[in-house]
């Protein structure tokens, strides 16, 4: 393993800017690391070797004209974002072989700041899942223990970071798909405020919940990437037309003196493993010792969040995924000249969608159908209001809320794959955030029996800077204790 792949994105960016390293050397080192480790991890669905090296050469040539701190630094892109000419599958057979004719706004912004895209990472099909086991192309494995899941849906992006295959990654988070993988792989992930990052070119799962965000192995790198991808985009009607909070300055300031930090009472207790609760309590003690005031806060309607989410997200998905109709792009099955368009559509969707996607489309179609709409979808929408009010009431008392990111550490591959309700519980602490559209980060809090535990911070909408302020402060003390990022402790990746 090249020592280069352990460096942070900020360090690599500085060394490239100073001419100490070329983007080509850095990119090649990460491509080599992918080649050496990905047969065991399977973080990538497509490695764009030629494209990445061409982008790196371009970055080396244009170095003098750039003031981007991440110019020339490589990144792993979740396969749910369109990149022109590069296969984009969303982990589904229905999009196998599709090459988008355009760039998503996130990709355009990455390219504009000189970031090199290494390839597309594995995910649960159409981002529906918490383990990456729902990928049509096989699961990703957790670098901490390859018998365990790396979280989902963005397990590929999180595993790529932990396996030192990339110092930066992009994820998307509809109910926890950035934060839960970050938690179980010992990496950092942020779900920005809804509307903070453009959804143009992000293949839609649940449009009122989906949000792309930055992932890395430390808080500052995450902030630097956040700064690149955030901001108003006229191509997304739900994009917020307001300045991006200064997340980089907040990550560097990393000062919690005088801050009020609220512990969500409902996101603890039954179902939360002891190791998870212990690391959470230790992190709180650190923040308190740094001058924050810790206050318990109650959000009584959070108990309805999981139910509301598993009605709203499938309902929106059943509508969004209607676009996969075998007519304009993607798979087409059974077109023998005799069958009707409708028959071809139904056969294609049977062959092209996996079990979880079918389950959610059927559930969503049912929840929206005449006679059930009010009882299911209508009630879920009321819950959404109640949860948003819980957050508003809490933020009258505190600056941020905190909880464990997930109730447990990474579970074993196969353990929950045929029990959807048990799987859904993985996201119990992350889901309320998406329903209200607020901002949230997961960062490593330590290990429980050798596996990573995540600490979740939740800030009000458009106060994403507070995530970095608190996360940066906690990380400073934890990195001092661990002698570097938690991912340096992954057993099989030790430099020998």
């Amino acid at each position, binding site marked *: 393993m090249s020592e280069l792949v352990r460096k942070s994105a900020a360090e690599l960016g500085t060394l490239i800017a100073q001419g100490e390293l070329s983007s080509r050397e850095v990119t090649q080192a990460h491509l080599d690391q992918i080649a050496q480790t990905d047969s065991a991890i399977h973080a990538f669905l497509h490695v764009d070797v030629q494209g990445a090296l061409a982008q790196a050469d371009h970055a080396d040539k244009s170095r003098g004209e750039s003031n981007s701190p991440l110019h020339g630094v490589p990144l792993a892109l979740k396969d749910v974002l369109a990149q022109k000419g590069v296969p984009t599958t969303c982990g589904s057979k229905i999009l196998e072989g599709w090459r988008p004719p355009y760039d998503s706004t996130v990709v355009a912004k990455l390219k504009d700041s000189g970031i090199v895209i290494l390839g597309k990472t594995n995910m649960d099909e159409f981002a529906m899942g918490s383990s990456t086991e729902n990928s049509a192309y096989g699961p990703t494995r957790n670098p901490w223990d390859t018998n365990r899941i790396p979280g989902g849906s963005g397990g590929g992006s999180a595993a790529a970071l932990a396996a030192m295959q990339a110092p930066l990654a992009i994820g998307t988070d509809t109910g926890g798909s950035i934060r839960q993988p970050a938690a179980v792989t010992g990496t950092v992930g942020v779900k920005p405020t809804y509307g903070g990052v453009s959804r143009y070119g992000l293949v839609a799962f649940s449009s009122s919940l989906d949000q792309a965000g930055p992932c890395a192995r430390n808080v500052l790198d995450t902030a630097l990437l956040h700064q690149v991808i955030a901001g108003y985009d006229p191509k997304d009607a739900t994009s917020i037309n307001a300045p991006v909070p200064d997340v980089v300055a907040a990550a560097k300031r990393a000062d919690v003196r005088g801050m009020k930090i609220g512990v969500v009472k409902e996101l603890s207790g039954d179902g939360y493993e002891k190791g998870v609760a212990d690391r959470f309590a230790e992190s709180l003690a650190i923040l308190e010792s740094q001058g924050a005031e810790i206050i318990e806060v109650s959000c009584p309607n959070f108990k309805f969040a999981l139910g509301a989410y598993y009605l709203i997200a499938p309902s929106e998905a059943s509508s969004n995924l209607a676009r996969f109709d075998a007519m304009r792009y993607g798979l087409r099955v059974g077109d023998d000249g005799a069958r009707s368009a409708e028959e071809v559509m139904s056969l294609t969707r049977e062959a092209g969608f996996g079990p979880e996607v079918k389950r959610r489309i059927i559930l969503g179609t049912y929840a929206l*159908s005449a006679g059930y709409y009010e009882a299911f979808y209508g009630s879920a*929408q009321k*819950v959404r209001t109640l949860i948003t009010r819980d957050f508003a009431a809490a933020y009258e008392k505190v600056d941020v809320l905190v909880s464990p990111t997930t109730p447990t550490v990474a579970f074993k591959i196969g353990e929950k794959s045929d029990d959807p309700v048990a799987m859904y519980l993985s996201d119990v602490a992350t889901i309320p955030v998406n329903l209200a559209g607020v901002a949230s980060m997961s960062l490593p809090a330590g290990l429980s029996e050798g596996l990573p535990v995540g600490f979740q911070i939740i800030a009000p909408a458009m106060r994403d800077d507070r995530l970095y302020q608190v996360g940066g402060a906690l990380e400073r003390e934890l990195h001092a204790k661990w002698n570097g990022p938690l991912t340096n402790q992954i057993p099989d990746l030790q430099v020998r």
Partner: protein
Amino acid sequence: MAGKSRISRDEVARIAALARITLGDDELTHLAGQIDGILDAVAVVQEAAGTDVPAMSHPLEISNVTRPDLIRPSLTPEEALSGAPASEESRFRVPQILGEEA
């Protein structure tokens, strides 16, 4: 709750037809059981149904967004058709959409 099924196998078949997904017999039976379990778990939201609060469909207060109606560069016909399963004369070629006379 337990014992009382919320959704029957026939109902799942009807919904699958509405969603344009062909399902085999085994898949239908398996799915009906699972959807029933999920509906049991999510029915908790009905406790909130009596509450006098407005429904919320979106986290942002948004109104419709329009842009000036100007001619701008867009995809070429070749690019737009690049992912099509079948095309002909710069158009998507699709299976028959109307029943044909025998």
